[in-house]
């Protein structure tokens, strides 16, 4: 039906879609453009709208309002079975009464593909997920990771231009998850299909994605590459959700040269300022903070004193949680060659004001994370 060459991913254009359940706005004016062949991850805490967005694209959920284009065609109102979009579910959803081979052949049988071609394509798909030897097994005879690989083969065997994955690795343990992430990345590269991947795991999103859309409370907070989200978060929520971070809150004073925050009785400054009537907070990545014993200065004009609250050995270095003067926790990473600190030890944290991100405070950023 489709050849390798024509099997290019389709673009997806989500235009201000809204989905309400009674008074609850599951999706609130969400817009997103996905390039053909792109690996787009929808990242966010549970209930943030990422899975609802996926279900809308798959055709499982109706829209309250908005437009959805797949490959340039409006698919609003088109039932799921006519969309030709592959879906991989967290719970595998393999048919328990069919062998692996018949599961993978299912979408081809529905499309009237002849026996010989069907068998060839089933084997090719199983080859791609390295499950060729399991064609005659039943799903109940496979492990979770094997079942999910079969589900992946079943979702790509009919060469859909778009593949949706809803937390596909959520039920698997860490080692297996990391290995399958690389497998999924490889399969994406080989197929050229547009992937939309839903997860609440920010590390997974960083490993897999070309770009990430961060969801919070039914809205998209920011869309960008992992590096953009990490280095230049546009909201406090994004900064907190992606990677480790230290948030400094305190009495703020802005003037022409920048912003100063007063934390306990120490003042830190950054050459940035926020416009509008918002409370500014500073967000710092762990590697932007240097940890020193008192009296040993480091680079950067800002110094905060604190006490080691937690020391975590990571193998490649150590991670410290430092309780600051106002009781808040700062997160610092230091490499193996640095000296190590003990819990309770008094330390100084140094950073360059230019490395601090100045963001508008958002009380919900903390609550939605947990």
């Amino acid at each position, binding site marked *: 039906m489709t050849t390798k060459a024509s099997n290019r991913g389709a673009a997806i254009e989500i235009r201000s879609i809204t989905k309400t359940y009674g008074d609850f706005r599951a999706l609130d004016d969400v817009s997103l453009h996905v390039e053909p062949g792109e690996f787009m991850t929808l990242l966010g805490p549970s209930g943030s709208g990422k899975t609802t967005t996926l279900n809308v694209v798959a055709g499982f959920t109706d829209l309250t309002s908005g437009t959805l284009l797949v490959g340039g065609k409006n698919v609003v109102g088109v039932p799921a079975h006519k969309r030709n979009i592959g*879906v991989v579910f967290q719970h595998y*959803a393999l048919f328990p009464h069919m062998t692996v081979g018949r599961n993978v052949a299912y979408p081809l049988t529905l499309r009237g593909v002849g026996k010989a071609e069907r068998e060839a394509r089933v084997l090719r798909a199983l080859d791609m997920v390295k499950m060729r030897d399991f064609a005659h097994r039943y799903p109940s005879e496979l492990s979770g990771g094997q079942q999910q690989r079969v589900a992946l083969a079943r979702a790509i065997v009919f060469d859909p231009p778009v593949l949706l994955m809803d937390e596909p690795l959520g039920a698997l343990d860490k080692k297996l998850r990391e290995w399958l992430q690389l497998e999924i990345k490889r399969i994406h590269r080989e197929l050229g299909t547009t992937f939309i991947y839903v997860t609440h795991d920010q590390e997974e999103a960083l490993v897999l994605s070309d770009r990430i859309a961060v969801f919070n409370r039914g809205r998209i907070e920011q869309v960008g590459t992992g590096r953009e989200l990490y280095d230049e978060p546009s909201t406090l929520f994004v900064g907190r959700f992606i990677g480790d971070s230290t948030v400094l809150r305190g009495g703020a004073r802005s003037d022409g040269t920048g912003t100063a925050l007063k934390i306990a009785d120490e003042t830190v400054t950054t050459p940035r300022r926020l416009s509008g009537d918002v409370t500014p907070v500073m967000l710092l990545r762990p590697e932007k903070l240097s940890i020193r014993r008192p009296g040993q200065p480091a680079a950067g004009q800002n110094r905060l004193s604190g006490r080691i609250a937690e020391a975590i050995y990571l193998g490649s270095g150590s991670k410290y949680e430092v309780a600051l003067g106002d009781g808040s926790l700062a997160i610092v990473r230091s490499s193996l060659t640095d000296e190590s600190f003990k819990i309770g030890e008094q330390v100084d944290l140094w950073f360059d004001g230019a490395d601090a991100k100045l963001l508008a405070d958002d009380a919900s950023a903390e609550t939605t994370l947990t």
Partner: protein
Amino acid sequence: MSAIVEPAKPGTAGRSRAWKAFALALPALILLVAVVGYPLLMIVLRSLSEPHWGVQNYSWFFSTPVNLVVLKRTFAISAWVTVVCVACAYPYAYLMTAVGPKVRLVMVLCVLIPFWVSGVVRTLSWVILLQDSGVINSVLKWAGIGTVRLIRTQTGVVIGMAQVLLPFMILPLYSVMKGIDLRLMRAAQSLGARPIRAFFTVYLPLSLPGVYAGAIIVFILALGFYITPALLGGPRSTMLSTLVQNQVLSLLQWGRGGAMGVVLLLATFLLLALAAPAMRQKHKEGARH
């Protein structure tokens, strides 16, 4: 059971466990032997020994055309009852899995309440409903369709029996259906299956174990039905149990009655043995979750 699964020490420990399980089942076993095993043995013995030893009762059964006609009809009516029960119970059981807990409770009660009413009472109410001037025919007449003969016909018997046996179909079906993951239907649709196709390729095969279980219970119970066919049926819808009753209670031919019972029992075994391989295969597949 557990003794077989137990991996360690198949010797003493396993054996003592098996004995304990056996001891627990003993009262039930004694009851079964006393009220089923012994009477059954007596029936078989009497069918071979009255009025004298030999197979004369069996040769009488197979050489009397009316017996064979009624035997065949008994199986036919039971098959029809099973088909009607599947047709009625399948959507009902499916609905039970789809509704909320409160509606489900009402639906379960609707299934169970007839159980608490005596079979004779229920059958007599069917007489009132089905008779020529009964409720059903009055409605049909009023609607301009005209009357249908229901009482003293095979159709009437099938309707009445199906109603009595319906719970035996609904309950096993429901217990299987509630275990079917409805998300599989969504997966089937994402792979390109229209809802109706998804039903026939995914839901139906997974629900078949329930259909088989219910069908076997209903069919076997229907074979031995006595009151309902006797009250709702006419001479052309007599079932084997009525003939047995005639032989034993009216003619005091215990041997002939016994032979009829044994023939019915063996015929049932034969039929189940023929159906078993297909069912077991499907059942095994459906049970894989």
